[in-house]
C-alpha cells in the first residue's frame, strides 16, 4: 500500500455558492503527518469533512487504504471509514466520563475495552482521570482525552480539525509537541487542519496550502517556507519582503544592488526575501538604511528598515548579539539567494 | 438506536392505547341519556345488576343527544334513547328513527297522554314545571308570587330570576308556548326575560342552589330538584310555587324512553325499557327522585300534590316535537349568549 489516503479532484459545492472545495488532489503516505493550511473559510475544514464522510463530495474520489470510500457512485458513511477525528472543540460527550469517552468506539469484551482504555490513558498521561467527567478537566486534558478517544479504535487515519486553537498560548506549544510525540509513537497517519502557519511548520511532514478552495502548493515545511510557489503563499507562510528587480539569469538588479537568484529569470521580477535572509550591520558594504522601528523578542529582534531611496521599507530579523535603536544608520545586504516571481502572474515558474 | 428499536417503541405506544381502551364488546347495550346521570344513573346500574345486561351510557343534554342521534343516523351506536321530555322523543319519531314498542309495554303507563300516539316511545316519569323560590328573598325584595311566567318580565323581578335556557325541560316549555301562544308572543317573552336580566344557569340544580343562596329570588325548574336539597337539609325554606290557572309555567311533561330502529340488540333494549316501567324502577322515581310514577301500581311520594290537582295547560305532548324550531328561537333570542 503506497498511500494511506488518496483524494482525487475533490470538489464540493453548497447549493449555488462558489465551490468550497475546488478540484483538490492529495496523497498521504503511511505514518505521514499532513497539514492542511490556509486562511479561515478557505475550504480546509470542508476538505477534512469530505475525507471524514460528514459531507458528500460533489465530484471526485477518495480512497482510504485499499477502499474507495467516495466516488461518483459510492459513498461510505463515516462510521465505516476507519477514521479517527479530533474536533476543534473536542466534542467530548458531556454525559460520559473520561474512560467512557475513550471506550466509546471500542468493540469487544468489557475486559478488552478496559485494558485498551488503560493503555490509552497511559499514552496520554491521564491515568488518574479515568472517572472524571469532561467538564472537570482543563482544556489541555480534554484535548488529550479527545486524542485518546480518536486513537482508541486504531483508525487507519486520524483527522484533526484545528485541535489546538482553543488552548492558551502557553499551553499550546506543550500540547502540540505532546501530540506529535504520541502520533510518532503510535505511527499514526494524520491529517491536520490549521490556519496557524507556525503550528503547521513545526508539526508537519508535509503541508498542503489551500486558498479559496484550491490547492496552492503541497510541500515539506522547509520547501514551503523557502520556496513558496507564489507570492500569496509566501505572504501566508511567515513574513516576506517583496522587492521589484530586473533579472538577468541567476542575478538581478534591485535597490539592494545585485542579488543572487534561486532560479534563473529574466526581465521584471518581484524578489521575495525572508526577513532573516537580510544581514543588518554597521558595515561599509551593502545598501544604506535607517532603522524605523524595532521589536525585541528575546531570542531575536525584528527591525523595520527604510532604504536610502526613501520609498522602500523592509523587515529584517536578526539575532540579539547586536543592539539597534530607532534612527540608527545601518547597512543591509542579502545573505541568501532570493526567490524571484514573475511580476505579472506572481508565480515562480511561468 | 436501530430502526427496529424505534419501531418497537412506536408499537408499544400503540399497544398502550388499546390496553387502556375499554373492551368494546358487542353485547354492551348503548344508552344515550338526555337525563342527568344523577337522576337515571343509579337505576341503570340497578338494571345491570338485576339483569346482567351491561350498559354503556352517554350523558348529555336531551336536545344535544337528540341532535347527535339525528346526525349519526343509521350509524348511531345508540340502542336506547332516554329523554328528559317528550319533545325530543317526538323529534326522533318524526325522523322515523324509533322502533315501535310492544302494546304490553305501552299498556303499563296509566295515562295515555304520556305515551306516543304511534307507540314509538313511552313516558317513564312525570313532572311539573314550577317556580322554585325562597320566601325570605321574596319578602326582602317586597315581591308577590307570580301568577304567570309572564309576570317575571316585570321590572320588579329585574335580575332576580334564574333559568336554564339550554335545558330540555325548558326547551319543551318554550315549544308548548309556541304551540299555544304563537311564535311572536313566545319570542317577545324570551326577549322580555333577557331584557329583565334573567340569570342563566347550565341546569336546574344550580338554579335551586342559587335560590337557596339568595343569588336569585326564584327560578324556572322541574319540581323534583328541590327535594334533593330538602332530603339533605330539611331546614331549607325554599319551596315550590305552581303557577295557577293552567299557566304555561306549570306544564306537566314526561321523561321517556325509546328504542332506536338501528339497534342491534332489540331484546336487551326492550328489557331496559320494560325494567324502567317496572314497579322497582317506578318506585325509585317516586321515592328517590321525587318524580311522578306513571304506572298505576306505584304511589307517588306523599310530599307532592297529586298530578291531577295541578292545573296544567291543555296540550298534547306529541305536539312538542319541533325541537329545532325552538332551539333556533332560543338561540336567536340571545338567551345562550
Amino acid at each position: 500500500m503506497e498511500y494511506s489516503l488518496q483524494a482525487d479532484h475533490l470538489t464540493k459545492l453548497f447549493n449555488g455558492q462558489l465551490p468550497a472545495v475546488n478540484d483538490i488532489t492529495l496523497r498521504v503516505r503511511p505514518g505521514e503527518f499532513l497539514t492542511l493550511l490556509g486562511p479561515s473559510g478557505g475550504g480546509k475544514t470542508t476538505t477534512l469533512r469530505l475525507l471524514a464522510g460528514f459531507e458528500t463530495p460533489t465530484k471526485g474520489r477518495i480512497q482510504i487504504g485499499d477502499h474507495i470510500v467516495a466516488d461518483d457512485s459510492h459513498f461510505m458513511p463515516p462510521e465505516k471509514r476507519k477514521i479517527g477525528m479530533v474536533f476543534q472543540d473536542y466534542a467530548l460527550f458531556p454525559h460520559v466520563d473520561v474512560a467512557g469517552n475513550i471506550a466509546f468506539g471500542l468493540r469487544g469484551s468489557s475486559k478488552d475495552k478496559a485494558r485498551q482504555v488503560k493503555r490509552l490513558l497511559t499514552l496520554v498521561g491521564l491515568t488518574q482521570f479515568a472517572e472524571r467527567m469532561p467538564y472537570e478537566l482543563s482544556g489541555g486534558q480534554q484535548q488529550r482525552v479527545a486524542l485518546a478517544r480518536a486513537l482508541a479504535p486504531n483508525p487507519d487515519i486520524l483527522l484533526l480539525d484545528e485541535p489546538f486553537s482553543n488552548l492558551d498560548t502557553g499551553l499550546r506549544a506543550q500540547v502540540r509537541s505532546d501530540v506529535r510525540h504520541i502520533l510518532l509513537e503510535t505511527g499514526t497517519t494524520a491529517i491536520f487542519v490549521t490556519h496557524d502557519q507556525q503550528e503547521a511548520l513545526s508539526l508537519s511532514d508535509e503541508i498542503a496550502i489551500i486558498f479559496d478552495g484550491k490547492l496552492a502548493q503541497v510541500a515539506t515545511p522547509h520547501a514551503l517556507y523557502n520556496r513558496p510557489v507564489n507570492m500569496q503563499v509566501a505572504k501566508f507562510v511567515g513574513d516576506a519582503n517583496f522587492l521589484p528587480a530586473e533579472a538577468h539569469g541567476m542575478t538581478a538588479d534591485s535597490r539592494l544592488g545585485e542579488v543572487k537568484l534561486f532560479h534563473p529569470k529574466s526581465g521584471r521580477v518581484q524578489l521575495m526575501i525572508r526577513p532573516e535572509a537580510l544581514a543588518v550591520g554597521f558595515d561599509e558594504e551593502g545598501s544604506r538604511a535607517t532603522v524605523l522601528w524595532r521589536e525585541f523578542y528575546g531570542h531575536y529582534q525584528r527591525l523595520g528598515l527604510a532604504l536610502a531611496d526613501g520609498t522602500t521599507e523592509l523587515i529584517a530579523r536578526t539575532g540579539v548579539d547586536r543592539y539597534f535603536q530607532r534612527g540608527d544608520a545601518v547597512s543591509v545586504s542579502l545573505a541568501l539567494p532570493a526567490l524571484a516571481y514573475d511580476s505579472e502572474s506572481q508565480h515562480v515558474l511561468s | 438506536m436501530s430502526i427496529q428499536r424505534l419501531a418497537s417503541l412506536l408499537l408499544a405506544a400503540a399497544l398502550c392505547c388499546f390496553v387502556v381502551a375499554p373492551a368494546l364488546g358487542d353485547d354492551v347495550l348503548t344508552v344515550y341519556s338526555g337525563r342527568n346521570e344523577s337522576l337515571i344513573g343509579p337505576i341503570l346500574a340497578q338494571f345491570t345488576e338485576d339483569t346482567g345486561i351491561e350498559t354503556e351510557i352517554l350523558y348529555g343534554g336531551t336536545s344535544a343527544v337528540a341532535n347527535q342521534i339525528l346526525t349519526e343516523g343509521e350509524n348511531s351506536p345508540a340502542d336506547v334513547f332516554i329523554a328528559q321530555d317528550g319533545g325530543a322523543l317526538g323529534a326522533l319519531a318524526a325522523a322515523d328513527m324509533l322502533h315501535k314498542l310492544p302494546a304490553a309495554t305501552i299498556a303499563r303507563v296509566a295515562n295515555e297522554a304520556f305515551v306516543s300516539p304511534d307507540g314509538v316511545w313511552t313516558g317513564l316519569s312525570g313532572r311539573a314545571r314550577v317556580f322554585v323560590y325562597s320566601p325570605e328573598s321574596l319578602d326582602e325584595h317586597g315581591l308577590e308570587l307570580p301568577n304567570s311566567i309572564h309576570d317575571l318580565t316585570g321590572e320588579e323581578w329585574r335580575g332576580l330570576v334564574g333559568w336554564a335556557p339550554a335545558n330540555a325541560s325548558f326547551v319543551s316549555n318554550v315549544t308548548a308556548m309556541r304551540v299555544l301562544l304563537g311564535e311572536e308572543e313566545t319570542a317577545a317573552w324570551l326577549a322580555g326575560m333577557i331584557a329583565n336580566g334573567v340569570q342563566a344557569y347550565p341546569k336546574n340544580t344550580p338554579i335551586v342552589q342559587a335560590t337557596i343562596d339568595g343569588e336569585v329570588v326564584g327560578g324556572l325548574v322541574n319540581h323534583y330538584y328541590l327535594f334533593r336539597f330538602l332530603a339533605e337539609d330539611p331546614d331549607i325554606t325554599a319551596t315550590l310555587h305552581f303557577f295557577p290557572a293552567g299557566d304555561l309555567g306549570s306544564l306537566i311533561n314526561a321523561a321517556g324512553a325509546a328504542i332506536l330502529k338501528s339497534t342491534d340488540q332489540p331484546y336487551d333494549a326492550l328489557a331496559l325499557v320494560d325494567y324502567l316501567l317496572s314497579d322497582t324502577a317506578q318506585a325509585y322515581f317516586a321515592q328517590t327522585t321525587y318524580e311522578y310514577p306513571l304506572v298505576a301500581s306505584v304511589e307517588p311520594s306523599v310530599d307532592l300534590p297529586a298530578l291531577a290537582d295541578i292545573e296544567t295547560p291543555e296540550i298534547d305532548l306529541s305536539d312538542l316535537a319541533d325541537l329545532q324550531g325552538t332551539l333556533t328561537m332560543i338561540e336567536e333570542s340571545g338567551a345562550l349568549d
Partner: protein
Amino acid sequence: MQLADAIRPRLRINGHHHRVLARWQVGNRQLAQAVSLAVVAVVMIPIAYLVLGAVSAGQEGIDYLIRARTLRIVGNSISLMTAATLLATLIAVPFAWLTSRSDLPWRRAWLALGLAAMVIPSYLTAVTYTEAFGPKGVLQSLLEPFGVDRLPPIKGFAGATLTLTVVTFPYIVLPVRAALLHCDRSLEEAGQSLGLNRWGVFRQIILPQLRPALSAGMLMTALYCLSDFGAVAVMHFNAFTRAIFIQTESYRMDKASVLALLLVGMTLVLLLLHSRMQIRGRHYRVGVGASRHLELLPLGRWKAPALIFCASIVFLGVVIPLLVLFKWLLGHTLTNPIQVPLNLLIHNTVGVSAVSALVVTLAAFPLALLAARGATRFNRWLVNVAYAGNVLPGIVIALALVMFATQNMLSIYQTLPLLIIGYAIRYLPFSIGATESAFAQINPRYEEAARSLGLSPWAALARITVPLARGGILAGLALVFLNVMKELPTTLILRPIGFRTFATRIWSAYDEAFLSSVALPGLALILVSAFALAIILRREEAIS
C-alpha cells in the same frame, strides 16, 4: 415572513444554538421524513374537515358569518383577549421584576406561589370565582356588615376577564423574568454613567431589552384567551369557543365550522401581526451577557405595597380557588348520588394524559430532528404544518375530528385513539418546540464524533443525541401531560362513552351543583399538575 413560519412563535430565551454545518446524509433523513409526513397527514385532517364543513354550509354559512350576532361573538372574543392580555401584562411585569431584581423578602416563594396559578385549569378557577365573587358569594358575606347585601353578577365579561387574567399572567412572568435575569448589566451601568436615574434606566435600558420576552409572553396569553373554553363557558360569556361548543353540542356542524374557521383566521392574524413586530424589533436581543451577580434594588418604603401586591396576586390565583374547593369539600353541599371512585378518575386521567404525552413526544421526535438537523424547504414546510395546533383551539380540533369520524371513520368514533389524536394535534407544537430546542442546543460535533468512532446515524442518535436532549424532551413531555390533563373541551367532545376524567367529572358535577364532587377531583387535579409543573420549571431554571 411566511404565514407558515408565523405560526411557530418560540420562546427562545438564550443559549447557544447549533444549526450550521449540521447536515444529514440523504438516506438517513428519509425515515424521519416518512414518519413526519405521516404525522403531518394526521394534523391536516382537522383543517381539511373544517374547510369542508364550512363549505358545505354554503350560502347559509355566509349569511351566518355576517350576521350581527356572529360579529358580536368576534367583538366579544377580541375584547376579552385584549382586556385579559393587558391586565395580565400589567400585573406580570411588576411581579416578574419584584421577584427577580428587587430585595423583596421571600422572592422565590412569591414566585413559586404566583406561578402555581398555572396548575389550576381555567374552568376550576372560574367556578371558584363564581362562588367567591358571586352576588351572594363569599366576598359579599364579608361585606355584609358594611351594608352590601348583593354584589353585581360576576358572570359575563368581568368574570371571564378576571379568570383569564389570573390564569394567564404566569405565561408573561416566565419569559419576562428570564429576560430580566439575563439583562446585560453593563448596559444599565452605561445608562447610569450617562446620567439616567433608576426609572430612566428601567424605561430606556431594561424595557427595550424585555421587548422580545414581553411580546412572546403576551402572544402566549392572547392565544390562550382566544382558545380557552373553560373560563368563558363557566362565566357564560359568549366568546368563540363557547359559541362553537353550543353549536357542536347541538350537532350543527356547518355553523360550528364557520365559527371555527373564523376563530382560526383570527388566531392567524394575531400570529402574523406578532411576527411582523418581531421582525421590526429584531435588533433588540436579550444579551447572552456575562452573568455577573445581579444587584438587587432596595425597595425601601415601597416594600409594604410590593408585598401587598404579590400577596393579592397569590391570593387571587391560588388561595381563593383552594379555599373555595376546601370549603366545598368540607362544608355541607348537595350529595352526588353518582359516586365515582377517585382512583378510577386518577387512573383514567393520568393514564390518558401519559399515553397522549408519550404519543405526542414520539410523533414530535422526527419532526424536531428535521427542524434541528435537516433544514430544507420541504422539511421546514412539514414542521410548520405540524405546528397547526397553535392555531387550532381544542374545541375546533374536537369538532373537526367528530366530523371526520362520523363521516369517514366510524370505527374510531367515541374511542380513546380518537381522543388521543385530538390531544396530539393540539399539543404537538409544545413537544416539537421543546425537543427541537433541546436538539438545537446539542453540538452536532458530538454526533459526528460518534460517527467517526464507528456508530451508525441511529446509534449516534440513541447514544448521544437522545441522552443529551433528555431534559428538554422530558420537559416537553411534562408540558403535554399537564395540558392534556387540564384539557376540557376536547375531552368532553371526543371521549368514549362513559370515560371519565378529572376534567369531565368537574364539569358535569358543577353543571348539577354537586360542589363536593367538584372539590375532590379539582384538588387532586391541582396536586398532580403541580408535580408536572415542577418538572417543567426545574428544566427552565436549568436552561437559564
